[in-house]
């Protein structure tokens, strides 16, 4: 695993320029910084509509130091497919990265994502998941957790959650992983591993959003870490047929070592309306997810 000391060389390098339009404490900016360091600032990026269309600031300037296309909401996997194909024909190497939110990935752009995945396009797709349509003001998405408050689920989301990363494995792509902004070394390792593989790579990055989830700006990393420590978010990696639990999540295979889920929930205003029964249901959901992922580690061994 990469160490922080190895990243010291980026200590003063601004691969993402400061002075962005992101909200204070924005997890997407953390993820974007780690992505840029992982690839040493040498990649092309495609960004669909979402917070990351706004974050880099206003034209004729941008905070991003790599060639970047901002494109329509549902189009990024297809645009990246075309980019990659053309670059291959022209003999230009280097990663093409889609940086997309949950709306663009799980919902409006899902067909396009599915198409690019099943064609095994040689791109890295990062789903930076803040679990709702944040850019339009916190509306429920396909990855918003059940019962979470959003402006379109004012009494809590009644639907379930689409598990996009597992759906991606079923597309027979070579690489799928989950990651968290609280575990940058794990994420950077995964991006680098993805970059070394030909074909479609998918990384699902958990990104707690202060205004969207209703927690203080300074808690972004704390909330993200708690998601892993309580077992709410499992870090795993599927690499060419083998699925493993990633190091930060290994302790939490043991249910007894997971922190109480309440610690994660109570920091977030979006869950403040939950009843005891609601919390029990959420806990049962976490157990089911662990059972499923652990079974998958047996199947994909």
């Amino acid at each position, binding site marked *: 695993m990469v160490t922080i000391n190895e990243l010291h060389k980026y200590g003063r390098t601004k691969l993402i320029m400061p*002075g962005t339009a992101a909200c*204070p404490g924005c*997890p997407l900016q953390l993820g974007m910084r780690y992505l840029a360091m992982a690839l040493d600032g040498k990649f092309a990026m495609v960004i669909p509509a979402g917070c990351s269309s706004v974050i880099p*600031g206003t034209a004729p*300037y*941008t*905070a991003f130091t790599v060639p970047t296309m901002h494109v329509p909401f549902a189009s990024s996997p297809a645009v990246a497919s075309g980019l990659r194909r053309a670059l291959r024909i022209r003999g230009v190497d280097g990663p093409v990265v889609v940086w997309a939110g949950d709306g663009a990935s799980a919902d409006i752009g899902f067909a396009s994502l599915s198409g690019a995945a099943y064609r095994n396009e040689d791109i890295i797709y990062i789903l930076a998941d803040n679990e709702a349509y944040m850019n339009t003001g916190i509306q429920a998405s396909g990855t918003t957790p059940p019962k979470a408050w959003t402006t379109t689920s004012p009494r809590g989301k009644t639907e379930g959650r689409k598990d996009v990363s597992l759906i991606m494995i079923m597309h027979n792509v070579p690489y799928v992983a989950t990651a968290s902004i609280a575990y940058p070394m794990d994420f950077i390792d995964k991006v680098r591993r993805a970059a070394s593989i030909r074909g479609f790579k998918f990384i699902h990055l958990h990104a707690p959003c202060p205004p969207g989830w209703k927690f203080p*700006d300074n808690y*972004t990393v704390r909330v993200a870490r708690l998601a892993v420590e309580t077992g709410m978010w499992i870090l795993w990696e599927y690499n060419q047929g083998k699925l493993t639990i990633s190091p930060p999540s290994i302790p939490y295979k043991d249910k007894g070592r997971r922190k109480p889920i309440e610690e994660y929930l109570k920091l977030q205003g979006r869950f403040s309306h939950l009843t005891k029964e609601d919390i029990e249901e959420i806990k049962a959901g976490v157990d089911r997810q662990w059972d499923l992922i652990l079974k998958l580690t047996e199947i994909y061994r």
Partner: protein
Amino acid sequence: MSSVSSKYVKYILSKPMMGAGGKTGTWRVHRPVIDAEKCIKCGLCWLYCPENAIDWLEDKTVAVDYDYCKGCGICSDVCPVRAITMVKEGVI
């Protein structure tokens, strides 16, 4: 217009620049103040700064760029030795 950067077509392309979203230091309500005595030079505040407004210098000490720091306070929250305090702006 100076912003046109393709020499082939009159077109507005963007180039990297600090402060493309503005001088975001003005957003700040609380400023991070680093206690150099306490700092163990671990770099975590640099690592977890969303705004990339902290420099992790050659000697592994850190420096905040107050022109752009939005004052989110993550650096203070992740500091393992509580070397960073958030001080209300305007208070000396």
